[in-house]
């Protein structure tokens, strides 16, 4: 059953997908930092308030993924920021996250060598988001 985009239910399903992934388990070995996704508001797309996804990832496992205020996500070790519609493009495989970062469509804050070292893990993380069935507010 589809869940509302970037809701607590979505976070729960996303976490399950990450923890089901053997690819992520292997590629994320040694990772020990928090990751925040800032989803910027786009009121014209029926996404009126910015939200933050806080991911507590450790050694190939998602210990917790929660959705809350954008400010919470901004406190993480790594922060990726983009408007709602860009994240939708990532989650529907219209935009590759690596390309998006190189093009500046997704803005990354954090230690670059570390995130580059875990490119495969971040690609699989993106794959996991695409497996969560989502109700997009701008499609209702």
């Amino acid at each position, binding site marked *: 059953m589809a869940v509302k985009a970037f809701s607590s239910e979505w976070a729960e399903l996303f976490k399950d997908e990450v923890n089901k992934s053997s690819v992520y388990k292997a590629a994320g070995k040694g990772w020990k930092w928090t990751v925040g996704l800032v989803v910027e508001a786009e009121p014209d797309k029926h996404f009126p308030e910015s939200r933050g996804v806080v991911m507590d990832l450790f050694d190939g496992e998602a210990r917790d993924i929660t959705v809350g205020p954008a400010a919470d996500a901004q406190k993480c070790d790594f922060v990726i920021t983009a408007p709602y519609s860009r994240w939708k493009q990532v989650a529907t495989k219209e935009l590759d996250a690596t390309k998006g*970062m*190189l093009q500046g469509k997704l803005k990354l804050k954090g230690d*670059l060598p*570390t995130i*580059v070292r875990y490119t495969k893990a971040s690609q699989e993380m993106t794959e996991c988001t695409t497996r969560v069935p989502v109700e997009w507010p701008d499609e209702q």
Partner: protein
Amino acid sequence: MHDSGSGRMARRAIKATSKEPRLVEYASKEPSAFAEMLGGLIEANVLANAEKKKDFDTLVARVGIWVTDIEEGVTLVFDAGQLTVYNGLEPQRTITIRAEAETVMSLSNLKIGVFGMPVYYDEVGRSVALKLVRGKLKIDGMLPNIATLNRVTRIFSVQ
């Protein structure tokens, strides 16, 4: 004697100002996201690793990187301890690397083995070598500049 001591102090004070040249500069006032990412990556690598710093301090080369699937590129002008990053491809390049975004990221994940040579026999190395053989990774100027390419790879690698 007294004066020379004062001189040393004065020079120290000047060195500490923000006018000291940075390791990485951007030619454009508005560097592209790709330029900032590569510049930031190289700067972080060089500052964190003495071996990479040694390579950086001796490297003189103009390296172009063109990402084929986003149609964006940069030119990295290494000048013995100073790097200037240009948006797009500039003329007179020593080496030009052309590949998809994923392959460019793989290049920065190449492990460095004995004698400072990139490792091409592990999973990442094999995939890079295979792309080179299949023409999905093109390196213009590779053969006459192997030593330069290896040095750039070492500076670029996060491993």
